[in-house]
């Protein structure tokens, strides 16, 4: 029996029962579409986070106080919040000794109440230096960023994010206005252009102070992080060694910092999101197994409906394996149709999502599409083996006599 003839016979059988075919195709399509849609969402989220990290700028090192076992797992150390020894401004300044270090900027993070005239608002305060502008790729909208002075010089100026600006000043020009933060006052030097969240900071919601002022404000000498931009991506590792050596010498020979490359952070998040995407795909493929059970049912009914026909085929000289192939092909055609419809529906859904949330880039990964089709086919095949085998084994005489 030729493959094309087998497929044609199966197609004829399928089109004979349009409702049955439609239901089954729909069940499979929903499963495949679910896989496509959910993995597209997972992938979209992963790419979004990736994009956020990349926007932090390349060849960046992040120094955290405290030592974690492997620097690759640095993120977890931060999450645990263990800080045995403070990183100080002097530590940050000392990093300039390395020839591989281009820019160093310390960060202090805290929250406080900002007020201007009668208006008051809880804000996030970040203490840093002029270098932060480049390192974070922030853009200035009005005025200027922090003045380029030594880290340890306190000047009563600040830069505000776009949301802070809008809430306090609306459309009026805030440059030169004095903003009160906690018990200090600072003159607004500039505002940031709206950017949304980049990396771990939402710059729109920030008030940015010189780091020395922030230290006074929070009355804490310890730095939250030091960001280091190296002279190039090739020297990341040398820079990292230098930083550890310099800090060690300043900390009585104790290696009590963690240097995280951006890659490491990125990889961690990347793998987390990949796991999530895989998990989503796994959950969605359960529906394909359910569809498989449905296929088994439908094929069992098909076999009992067509018992006489099977008897006829056998009387005409059909081999067992031919009958088996016919019914398996029928199941395959059904799952194939369902899979195709599922891809169309799923990708249609992805398109729709992309239109609704243009800031995220949703595309279903090829592996998910291929995998869900493979899964549907496998499930269809596996679950139709029993009915098809049942058909192939029928005794011709009793099959012909069946009603």
């Amino acid at each position, binding site marked *: 029996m030729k493959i094309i003839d087998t497929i044609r016979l199966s197609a*004829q059988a399928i089109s004979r029962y349009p409702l049955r075919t439609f239901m089954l195709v729909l069940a499979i399509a929903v499963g495949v579409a679910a896989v496509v849609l959910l993995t597209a969402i997972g992938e979209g989220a992963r790419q979004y986070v990736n994009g956020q990290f990349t926007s932090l700028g390349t060849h960046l090192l992040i120094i955290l106080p405290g030592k974690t076992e492997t620097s690759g797992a640095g993120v977890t150390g931060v999450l645990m919040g263990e800080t045995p020894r403070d990183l100080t401004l002097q530590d940050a300044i000392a990093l300039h000794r390395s020839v591989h270090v281009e820019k160093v900027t310390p960060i202090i993070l805290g929250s406080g109440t900002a007020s201007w005239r009668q208006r008051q608002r809880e804000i996030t305060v970040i203490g840093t230096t002029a270098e932060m502008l480049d390192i974070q790729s922030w853009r200035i909208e009005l005025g200027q960023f922090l003045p380029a002075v030594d880290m340890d010089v306190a000047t009563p100026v600040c830069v505000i994010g776009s949301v802070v600006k809008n809430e306090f000043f609306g459309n009026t020009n805030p440059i030169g206005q004095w903003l009160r933060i906690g018990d200090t006052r600072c003159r607004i030097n500039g505002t940031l252009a709206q950017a949304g969240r980049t990396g771990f900071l939402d710059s729109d919601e920030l008030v940015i102070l010189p780091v020395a002022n922030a230290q006074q404000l929070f009355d804490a000498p310890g730095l939250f992080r030091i960001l280091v931009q190296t002279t190039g991506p090739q020297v990341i590792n040398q820079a990292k060694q230098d930083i550890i050596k310099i800090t060690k010498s300043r900390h009585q020979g104790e290696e009590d910092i963690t240097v995280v490359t951006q890659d490491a952070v990125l990889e961690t998040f990347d793998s987390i999101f990949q796991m999530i995407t895989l998990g989503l795909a796994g959950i969605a493929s359960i529906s394909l197994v359910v569809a498989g059970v449905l296929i088994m049912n439908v094929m069992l009914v098909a076999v009992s409906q067509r018992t006489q026909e099977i008897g006829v085929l056998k009387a005409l000289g059909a081999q*067992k394996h031919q009958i088996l192939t016919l019914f398996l092909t029928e199941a395959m055609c059904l799952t194939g149709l369902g899979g195709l419809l599922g891809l169309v529906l799923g990708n249609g859904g992805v398109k729709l999502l992309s239109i609704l949330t243009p800031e995220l880039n949703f595309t279903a990964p090829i592996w998910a599409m291929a995998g869900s089709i493979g899964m549907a086919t496998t499930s269809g095949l596996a679950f139709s083996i029993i009915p098809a085998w049942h058909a192939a084994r029928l005794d011709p005489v009793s099959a012909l006599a069946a009603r």
Partner: protein
Amino acid sequence: MIKLRGICRNFQVGDQIVTALNHVDLEIQHGEYISIMGPSGSGKSTLLNILGLLDRPTEGTYWLNKKDVSQLEERALAEQRQKNIGFIFQFFHLIPRLSARENVELPMLLAGKSANARRERSRDVLKSMGLDDRLNHRPDQLSGGERQRVAIGRAIVMEPAVLLADEPTGNLDSKSGDEVIQVIEQLNQEGISLIVVTHDPEIGKRADRHLTLHDGEVHHDTKKRL
């Protein structure tokens, strides 16, 4: 061509054993025209099924073209059916969703014949059945007599040596029945061995040789002693 020796066929029904065929001996030559008659339940269909290799005897030996086919395994049996046996039934057993032509082509399709060969052959066969204008009709668009003729076409499309007919006119009015008998007698004229099970004596009488079954035994055989 066909030789049966001591063929028995028992069926287990509950804890009882029903003997459908009881030590049947039979020899059939190429090109013979035989009718099998006998009361209902006498074993006519069972004998035909065994001759057609759809069923296996419980006991006894069956030689088809000098080859012992009573011990063949399923695969070889199917092959023999495909090559040597044509079957037609009381209820036609056409595949309802296939056209007359596709039904006729089915055995060729199962045998892996090319689409071109099938088209040509099915057209010729249906033409010889007087159905040239019914090629693309589905069974539900055909009369009973036409359906049975399509079924005959399907049975002979592989040019088998034997045509087995189990009550071929049982579901037809007498006019269509006559037509069907004429068609298969014509085929017999052309050389095919024809074995017809019937309980219509008029049809039975037309055969060259009459076999009568009774309680699973050959009660009467008009075979000329040579």
